[in-house]
Structure formats: C-alpha cells, structure tokens
C-alpha cells in the first residue's frame, strides 16, 4: 500500500522547468525517473566582465563542467560582454583556454563543439548604447537560432560601483523585461554594499529593474556540499538534533582562515577589511544554518524565514571592546616563507586601520540558544587555509571516574569541515588500552573524499545550474543581507572610533587579544 501512495504523491514534487502561465507538462519527465538529471530548461547566460579572474577561473570552467555532465539544455548559449576588441571566435578561444586550464572534468571535443556553437561576444563599455543594442540583437538572434526561449540570466561579474550602470542599461534596452512566458534573472556577487545604507541603496537599484525573486546573490560558500550537508546532518538524522541546543552545547566556533595576504587586491580591500569581507556574508550565513530551527520545507521561502529569525535574534555583546577583536598581520615567517606585513603591502596607507583579522562574540536570543556564545573569526595570513564550524559540547555533568583518569579528556565536539578536506569529525573520550582507567580524546571521521569520491561538483557549477533552474535555496535574499549589516554595523562603528587593530605575526592563529577574549569567558580557540 505504501508504495502506491508514494507513487501518487511523487509527481507533485517533480522538478520540471515549468514556465508560469502555461499548463504544459513534459510527458518524458516523471518524478520516478531519477536517472534523468536536473537539466536546466532552454536558456542562456550573459556574463558582464567576462575577461575578469572570476569569470576565467570559475564561471567558464563551471559552464563547461555542467555541459560535460549533460546538465545544460541543447541550445544553451553563452554571451560575453567586455571592453575588448574581440570577435565571437576570439571569445570562444578565450573560453577554450580557460576551460582547458581550470575545468574539473576532462576536456571532450564533442562537448566543446556543442557549447562553442552558442557563444557570442559583445565588445563595449557599460555606457555604450550601441553595445547594449547589439546585446539585445544577439539575445533575439539566439532565441530564434538556438531556441533559448527568451530565458536569460545576466551575471554581473563586475565591481559593485558598476551595478547601477549595468542594470539601468539593461532596463533601458528592454533586456530586463522577460517576454511572456519566459524569465530574466540577475546574478550578483559580493560585496553587497559596505554597510546597511549602501546595501539598501544597491538593493533598491537592482530591484527597480529586476523582480526581487529574480535576483540571485552568489555566496559561493552556500554552494559547497558540506554547507548543504549541515541541513541534512541536522534535519535528516535523529541523533544530532536532540543535543543541538543550550542544554548540551557549550559554545560554537566558526572559523574561516586564509593563509594568503591581500595579494593584488589592495584597492578593494583597504577600507573594507575582514569583517565586512567575510563575517557579514559567509560566517553569518554559516551561523544561521547551524543555529536555525527546522524549516517547514526545503525551499527558498522556508529557508529564508528560518535564517531571518536567527539573524534577527542575534544580540551583540554589551562591551564591544571586550568581546570583539581585530588585527592586522605583521611581517614574519609563514610556512617557511618570509612575508611582509599588511601595512607594508603595495598600495596600503601605512596608517591604515583596516582589519585583516576579526573575531566577534555573538549570542542568539531564543529558547534554543540563550546563553550559548557563537564565536566567529576570520583572518588572512593565518596558519593554514581552513573553514570549519565547531560545535563544542559541555562536559559530562558527573564523572564516575576520578580526576586523574579524565585528565586528558577535553570537551566533546562535532566539527564540520567546510574546506579543505570536506567532511565531519566527532571528538569524544575513549579508554586507553591498558590496566589502568585512563580516558583520552579520540576522533571519528567522515570525509567526503572517502565515501563519495570525485562526485562533489564545484560550488559555482551548482549555483549556476540553480540560477538557470530558478531554484533560490542556496542564495541569500536581500532581507538576509540587510539583517547581516545590522549585526555588523555597530561593531564597525565601535572599531572606527576606538583604538587600532592589534598586530599579529603572519602564520600564527591571530592576535593575543583574541585568545584573551575567549579566556575572559573561560574558553579557548580550537586549533583548526
């Protein structure tokens, strides 16, 4: 009996690229047919700033990898827009080189040919009306020659100061208006402003042209398998959720460390700093996913509701000076290499107060988390490149073993490793073999690379496919962006008026002040 009811209810969940307003369903698709991949419907992707680093290293390879895995529709088209004197074939050559160098899957000539047929290039400036007229003609030409059906996503891989100009041009030339029965979407990358006011301004500009539901903000962390797995871990299993609360959890540490300096990004980075660059988006999103209540469904709206609840219940420490820390990396030795300090980097004002390290303590005022601190930290030129979420549990309330037996026993912890070496570690105490009772920490490990080798797609592959499918689960909405700024703005304001960033040696795990910040609460940072 149960199978028949499954069959009856299953077709409702099928993911057919349904176009609103029409009742046509594809008879060849069926929810029970799970071999057929989630192929995007007829569509095209227009990339602005196609000559940039992100586009070459991530976007174009991701498009190719999707095509190689058979997830793009037959007539998929890629339009590049940049200030280069290129023909279509020059652009195709550029994409070819980028794919050869950076794609995850092996290069196959037949896939390339299928993709190359749909490539167009529009040379021009963002001010240039003729270029946008050409773009419009190209889009219309692709609709008729490739069957893209009027469905286009515009990927703005350009500095945010150009966003207003580009979206206005799209509006002016009628590119943002979807013809009946099709869609037009905008994809934007961080930073989404540098404080609440600028974020609102940016949202207003974009929403003036595109419907808020059709604006996809890329936070590539959310495209990572482990991050999506946080929800699977918490809500598909029975054994974690009962202890996922203030009765058992002592505190949570969320870390994103980079071993590189600012590289050539001085112009972008100075004045922005680590907190705005990383905490505002990535770390607060990770915190929201770790702390949120169970969504009523795994869809964009339900996820937004729950994440917003968490972000809105965040409470900042009263004493911002005692519970936030910022730092700047000083010169030193990192991993056997001599590196210079932040203030000595090219293009940085030697009196700059920009933070390259930031640590904050946040609390979430709700029944589940009251009194459980969330420590968020990020920094450049730290020990190694790592991103992880550590949920640290309280000690057992009573131990029948005497204190010498448990001397080496730490707190239990569940660590979700976001990158690299995606996976999860559970740390707990175990008896050391021998005649005496001695308990020591051991770890149990789940590694993606071990149980599901090679099947993890790049974050951008997943996110681009989701944009084309119109699936907004993994994209932060403008409300979340604004709430995140509300959390960070008071901290930034405090920092602007109080003192200077502490200096920390490159290759270390941050300034001493950060250790003191946790010591004040009787805790210490994990070494990731």
């Amino acid at each position, binding site marked *: 009996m149960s199978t028949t009811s499954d*069959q009856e209810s299953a077709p409702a969940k099928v993911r057919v690229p349904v176009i609103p307003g*029409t009742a*046509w369903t594809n008879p060849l698709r069926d929810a029970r047919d799970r071999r*057929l991949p989630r192929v995007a419907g007829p569509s095209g992707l227009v990339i602005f700033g196609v000559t940039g680093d992100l586009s070459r290293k991530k976007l174009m390879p991701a498009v190719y990898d999707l095509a190689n895995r058979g997830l793009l529709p037959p007539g998929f088209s890629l339009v590049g827009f940049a200030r280069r004197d290129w023909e279509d074939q020059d652009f195709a050559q550029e994409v070819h080189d980028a794919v050869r160098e950076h794609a995850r899957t092996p290069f196959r000539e037949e896939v390339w040919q299928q993709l190359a047929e749909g490539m167009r290039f529009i040379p021009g400036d963002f001010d240039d009306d003729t270029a946008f007229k050409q773009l419009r003609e190209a889009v219309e030409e692709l609709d008729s*020659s490739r069957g893209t059906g009027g469905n286009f996503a515009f990927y703005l891989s350009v500095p945010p100061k150009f966003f207003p100009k580009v979206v206005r041009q799209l509006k002016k030339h009628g590119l943002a208006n979807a013809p009946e029965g099709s869609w037009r979407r905008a994809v934007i990358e961080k930073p989404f402003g540098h404080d609440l006011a600028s974020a609102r301004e940016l949202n207003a500009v974009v929403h003036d042209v595109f419907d808020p539901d059709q604006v996809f903000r890329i936070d590539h962390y959310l495209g990572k398998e482990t991050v999506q797995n946080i929800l699977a871990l918490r809500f598909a299993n029975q054994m974690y959720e009962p202890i996922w609360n203030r009765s058992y959890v002592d505190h949570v540490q969320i870390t994103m460390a980079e071993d590189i300096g600012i590289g050539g990004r001085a112009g972008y980075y100075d004045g922005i700093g680590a907190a705005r660059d990383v905490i505002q988006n990535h770390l607060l999103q990770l915190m929201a996913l770790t702390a949120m209540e169970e969504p009523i469904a795994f869809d964009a709206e339900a996820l937004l509701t729950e994440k917003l609840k968490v972000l809105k219940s965040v409470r900042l420490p009263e004493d911002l000076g005692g519970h936030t820390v910022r730092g700047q990396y000083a010169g030193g030795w990192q991993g056997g290499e001599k590196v210079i300090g932040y203030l000595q980097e090219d293009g940085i004002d030697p009196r700059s107060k920009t933070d390259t390290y930031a640590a904050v303590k946040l609390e979430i005022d709700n029944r589940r988390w009251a009194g459980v601190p969330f420590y968020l930290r990020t920094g450049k030129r730290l020990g190694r490149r790592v991103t992880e979420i550590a949920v640290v549990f309280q000690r057992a309330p009573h131990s029948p073993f005497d204190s010498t037996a448990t001397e080496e026993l730490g707190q239990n912890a569940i660590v979700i490793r976001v990158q690299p070496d995606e996976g999860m570690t559970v740390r707990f105490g175990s008896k050391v073999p021998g005649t005496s009772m001695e308990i020591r920490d051991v770890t149990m490990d789940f590694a993606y690379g071990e*149980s599901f*080798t090679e099947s993890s797609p790049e974050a951008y592959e997943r996110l681009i496919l989701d944009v084309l499918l119109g699936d907004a689960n993994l994209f932060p909405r403008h409300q979340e962006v604004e709430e995140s700024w509300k959390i960070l703005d008071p901290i930034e304001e405090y920092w602007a008026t109080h003192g200077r960033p502490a200096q920390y040696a490159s290759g270390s795990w941050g300034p001493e002040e950060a250790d003191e910040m946790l010591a004040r609460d009787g805790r210490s940072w994990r070494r990731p």
Partner: protein
Amino acid sequence: MKIDLTDTTASKINKALVQGRRAIGTPAVGMVLTMVIVTDEENAYDSVKAAEDASREHPSRTLVVIKRHARTPRDRTRSRLDAEVRVGSEAGTGETVILRTFGEVSEHADSVVLPLLLPDAPVVVWWPVDAPENPAKDPLGALAQRRITDMYAVEHPLDTLETRVRSYAPGDTDLAWTRLTPWRSMLAAALDQARTKIISAAVESEAENPSAELLARWLEVRLRVPVQRVVTPGPVVTAVRLGTDNGEILIDRPEGPLATLTLPGQPPRTLALKVRATSELIAEELRRLDADEMYAIALRGDGIKENS
C-alpha cells in the same frame, strides 16, 4: 597490497582483509557498498577493471565470484575455494577480493559471499555475462538490493528481454537501460524546448538492439503513440524521430560522439552524445540503489499491464 589464499574459507579471507588494511595504515574505511561480480575467468579482468574505476566515485568492497570448471571428473568432485585479497592502491579506492570456486562450493557461492558483505551497507550484484534467468531468485541475487544484468552480452537480446519482463522484481536493472540515459535526457530536454504534442515516433538502430527496444517501449508508454522500429546499419541507436504538428524533432547520431538535434523551425545544432564506457555505466547504476520504477515501466512497455 595483495594476499593470496589457497583452499581457504570466508573467515580466513576476513582476517586477510583486516591484516591488509592494518598494513597500509587505514583501519577505518568509508566504503559505501558491496559490489558482487559474478563472472567467468574470461570476462573477469575487464569487469574488475570497470568496477574499480567506478569505485572512484563509490568506494566499495568488490567481491568477484569466478566459477572454475575442472577438466577431470576427479577434480570436479573436490571442492575448493581460492582467494586473492587486494587492498590499497591495487584495488581502486576500496578493497577487492577475487574468489575462485572449484567443485561443489560453486553451487554454494552465496555461503562464501554472505560473511564478506560489509555490515549495514547495500549490496549490488552484477553479472557481466551469463546472468541467471530470474536474477531475484538466484541465491546471490537474493542477497542484493540491486541486480545488474546486461542484455548486450547475450546471443538473442530480444528473447532475453521477454525473460526479463517475466522475471522482473524491484531492484532489477540492465545496462542496456543505463546506456539510454543520455538519449532520454536529451529527448526530454528537446521536448522542454519544443513544448508540443507528439503525434508519431520512430527509433532507428541496428537490428536486435535491446536498448533501442527499451527506448521505443519507454516512448510508447510516456507519449502514448505507437513507436516505429527502423533497422539501420548502426552502430547501436542511431536516431530518434518525434513527429509533431509543425514538423519533426530529430536526434540523429549516425556515428561518433556528435549528434544533431533538429527542432521544428530551428536550425540544427550539435549535441555531445557519446557511447559510454562500462565503468561509467556502473558508476551511474550505483548512484541510486532503490528500485528503478521507470525501468520496470519501460520493460513492460505498457502502463496498463503494470498493475497486473
């Protein structure tokens, strides 16, 4: 590393597996399933290679059961089990045990396999050749959630197809069906684009091709139109035509990895539609281990018979 065991038992093999894992320093394993390959000596090498390639995506313990046929009557009465245990770099990302059975134990291969299955993990049985008439009733097949046969490896594929229809049990699957996934995916995508009612259909292929027959049956069930079978020189499936009121949807793959897609009122465009290697087919099979209902429907070729 490789450990050879002659005239052995399952418990000795288990010991050798633990010993092998200790020796290479990875006592904890993340294997997700047990793959049992039942084959003869001739096909063993290629099948094991395909399974080991597939294990890069699905780390697994591979048990290869090879039934040996003794030449003399005296050898035939003597029952013996030989095993070759491979762990580490010799065995892809998992572990491989090659079991050679002689004499009477060949009839009871399931007694050797059962103690070697991974605890709690799903079991998949694959017969690269000589699949039993009724896979689910076979002693080894009965241990598995998923039973993979291959109609490309039989003398009369269309007769075998009818046998498969009769013996179908949830969990059965065939590589002739797996080979169709790219075709079916492209046909579905083409229809997404054409968005119109189909009034006729034809599948073109070499003679007696089981994939083509399954594809035709699938189209018949889903589109509710009779599907014409057209014989061409091949190789395998060469084209699918779907008739609409405004013209024809055609996916044409005369040879090589490039196909042409033609939609009514649009210029033709190329598609990548490659004939895939066995390891890729196996990797696809292992992605989902629950019953493939759509295969059952396509196999029977008729939605009404489905309930009988």
